[in-house]
């Protein structure tokens, strides 16, 4: 049963895998590595000859060491806390229960909350410092655990664990020996993503951290602003190296392959599942509770003013809040298309055991590890000439969103792909189905929940992305997140109210997108 290390049901031919690898590597290479290299060259060889004095200077300084230490410590605590809160909820959402859609929706909405909104919400609940940083990171990342692990868990066959129980294994033993090993891949994936997100965090750190709490990324932001790209470059490289080491380490665990048959459906043990999902839902609800309180009550009295603010607060920056929301949806649609294409290519490319697959696997995670600030300046000097004058087009923004979303999509779908029962595909082949038929009639329907879920999650990432794109120059109409930033940059009640209302509307859109995805997969299962 436990077929660790064997190949997934859909092993691709070398040509296809080669093409898929090329697409993935080209995407990451062009959108991430090239601009990074350009900025590093600016830093280390400003006049042509290479100067590496900054390396020893930065690595030797006490400040760098304390920054690195704090970065690791806060990321470690954030990851641990996220797993503690997220895993019970992941179990809960693996089967239908009352409130499942809410838990999936609210966590994804929290994941996509603009950093500044999330930060300010936690700041109004907790004092600045490590606890607030960890809480904000948990609220952001609990969605990753709930969605990635929950999806894998829902595809898991409950019968082996039940059989073990029948044969006399204790509940704990059955969980530890049977269930946990089969979840290892998805837990590793979720842990990796959560760690990387916290490790490279910037917005949360500066908004809710205390004066002296600085991460590598916030330090890079300070140095870049003073055009010290040599010192910023050293830190960016340190960050990237850590990310690659962590990703490589996690890779082994992530690749645990278990083949499963489709899970049984039906509502089960609803109350216990609700209770298990409660902590995750509560943490994710905090930012929205703060927003709802402020949007519904103006001067302590209930008010519907926020609804009006969505279309009549006009800062004369090119769009009202409601139009900005529309622009976000357009951007998200493009981002999802690109993400799914590159994500599926990456999955195909990383299916086998070859060294290319290993390289591609690590390459996919790189966008999460590269400093957004550095990339922003990198884009400026890299994509400045035809044919790649990406910098001068609005769709550089959805492309950047896709770079962030691809690693998630890969980890969302892959556990599902690994658990597609090979015997089903085999049977289809025996019955005379050709490759195309096997794909459309067998593999895709089985993967459909994961693919739809991943696409919805990618949409959520794009709708809420604030970090990477705030570093890019903006042309055309503002998106919701950039308008929220602008609204919060003015004194006065009206912009504040509009910003809060817009952040809530954005969350609502995300919940609806996820609900739609959920519905789509359920219809399919019922068919």
């Amino acid at each position: 049963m436990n077929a660790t290390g064997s190949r997934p049901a859909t092993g691709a031919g070398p040509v296809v895998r080669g093409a898929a690898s090329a697409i993935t590597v080209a995407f990451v290479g062009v959108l991430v590595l090239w601009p990074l290299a350009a900025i590093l060259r600016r830093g280390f060889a400003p006049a042509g000859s290479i100067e590496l004095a900054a390396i020893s200077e930065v690595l030797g300084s006490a400040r760098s060491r304390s920054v690195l230490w704090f970065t690791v410590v806060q990321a470690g605590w954030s990851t641990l806390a996220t797993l503690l809160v997220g895993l019970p909820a992941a179990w809960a959402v693996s089967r239908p229960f009352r409130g499942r859609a809410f838990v999936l929706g609210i966590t994804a909405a929290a994941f996509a909350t603009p950093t500044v909104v999330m930060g300010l919400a936690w700041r109004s609940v907790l004092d600045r410092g490590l606890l607030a940083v960890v809480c904000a990171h948990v609220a952001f990342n609990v969605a990753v655990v709930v969605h990635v692990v929950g999806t894998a868990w829902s595809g898991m066959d409950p019968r082996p664990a039940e059989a073990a129980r029948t044969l006399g294994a204790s509940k704990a033993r059955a969980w530890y020996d049977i269930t946990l090993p089969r979840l290892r891949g998805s837990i590793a994936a979720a842990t990796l993503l959560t760690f990387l997100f916290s490790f490279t965090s910037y917005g949360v750190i500066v908004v809710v951290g205390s004066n002296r709490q600085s991460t590598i990324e916030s330090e890079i932001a300070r140095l870049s602003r003073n055009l010290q790209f040599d010192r910023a470059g050293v830190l960016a490289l340190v960050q990237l190296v850590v990310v690659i080491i962590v990703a490589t380490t996690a890779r082994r665990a992530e690749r645990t392959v278990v083949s499963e048959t489709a899970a049984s459906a039906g509502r089960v043990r609803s109350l216990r599942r609700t209770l298990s999902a409660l902590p995750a839902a509560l943490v994710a609800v905090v930012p929205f509770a703060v927003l709802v309180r402020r949007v519904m009550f103006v001067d302590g009295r209930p008010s519907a003013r926020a609804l009006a603010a969505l279309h009549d607060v006009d800062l004369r920056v090119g769009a009202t809040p409601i139009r900005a929301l529309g622009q976000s949806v357009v951007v998200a649609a493009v981002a999802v298309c690109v993400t799914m294409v590159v994500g599926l290519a990456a999955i195909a490319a990383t299916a086998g055991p070859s060294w290319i697959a290993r390289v591609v696997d690590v390459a996919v995670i790189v966008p999460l590890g590269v400093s957004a600030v550095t990339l922003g300046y990198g884009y400026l000097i890299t994509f400045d000439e035809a044919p790649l004058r990406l910098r001068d087009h609005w769709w550089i923004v959805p492309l950047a969103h896709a770079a962030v979303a691809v690693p998630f999509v890969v980890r969302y779908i892959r556990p599902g792909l690994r658990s597609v029962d090979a015997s089903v595909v085999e049977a289809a082949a025996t019955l005379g189905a050709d490759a195309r038929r096997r794909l459309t009639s067998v593999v895709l329907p089985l993967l459909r929940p994961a693919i739809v879920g991943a696409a919805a999650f990618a949409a959520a990432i794009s709708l809420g992305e604030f970090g990477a794109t705030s570093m890019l120059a903006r042309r055309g109409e503002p998106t919701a997140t950039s308008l929220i930033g602008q609204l919060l940059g003015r004194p006065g009640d009206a912009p504040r109210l509009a910003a809060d209302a817009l952040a809530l509307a954005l969350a609502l859109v995300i919940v609806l997108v996820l609900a739609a995805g959920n519905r789509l997969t359920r219809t399919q299962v019922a068919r």
Partner: protein
Amino acid sequence: MTMNPRQGPGTRARIGSMSMCFLVVVGLVGCSTDDARPAGEAGDSGGPAATVTVRLLAHDSWAASDGIFDPLLEQGIDVEVITGGDAGSLANSIVLDRENPQADVVYGVDNTFVGRALENDAFAVREYDLTNVVPELLAEVDTERIVPIDYGDVCVNFDEAWFAEREISPPTSIDDLIDSTYSGLTVVQDANLSSPGLAFLLATTERNPTGWEQWWSAFVSNDALVVPDWTTAWAEFSAGGDDGARPIVVSYASSPPVDVLYSDPPRDTTRIGVVDDGCFRQIEYAGVLRNARHDDAAADVVQFLLSERFQTDIPLNMFVWPSNRLVPEPDLFARFALHPSDPIVLTSAAIEERRDRVLEAWTDIVLS
């Protein structure tokens, strides 16, 4: 259960070909947009056939009335606005992409950062008509390259109601902020990351040329809170409309009129007071970038930014004062804004000479 490695190459083939198709499409769209661009520009404007598009890079606080550039359209100039961060980020981007700039004109780089751009030779030399510019704003400015478009003052703000309720007198000078009376009451921005943060730091260095480092040590010991940007500082401010608890914040002399303008429900009063001491004058410039695409049209755009039409639009959209002396201050500003009696005015050269050194020392004192 073993997996059959022969199964499902179709999956990959299909996904692979889909991906290829998509990338090809994206590529084509990309190329065609590049090619089609000049034609589209001419067609869209509805103006004369020779319409050119001038790209104007502005800071994130950019705001202007609809159709503000319509008069330029009659001259065959269409303006595309690009926003790219605050004054500091703007200066950095025009330095970095100098060889191949993403815009033709930059607006909003202020005296705290314009020296960096000038030193790196980011501007083209042009001739501008400066007849109507307030003369003081032109002192020691390289007006062949940059022209002042507006100015404003970074000042310490306080929550009048907070101090009145507690019968404590609000600070009257920036040196009061290190007094134990005001311990734990002030929030300021990170001078590395924020324009007003840097302005306030420069104000303290000017007020206290030899003792500013000790001043900051005392300020930090007095439990000053340092946050990344204006937005976070305002959220910490007790009159900022959030759940903030600190009644003193670094902001602008124009914060009170903006608070009134954007009040909801509308009111005709403000609880935001401004300390008339240590206000730092920010002067924002515009200029044509070296290697601009249409540099004559670009110079026309810069000249338009000095026109009465644009200058009248400035105050109530961007909350700074126009540099054109023929343009009167709006009534709201006259009533609610502070007009500092003795603002700190530093030339960009004087700032350039000290900025990086001061920032490094500040980081060691405050953030380590």
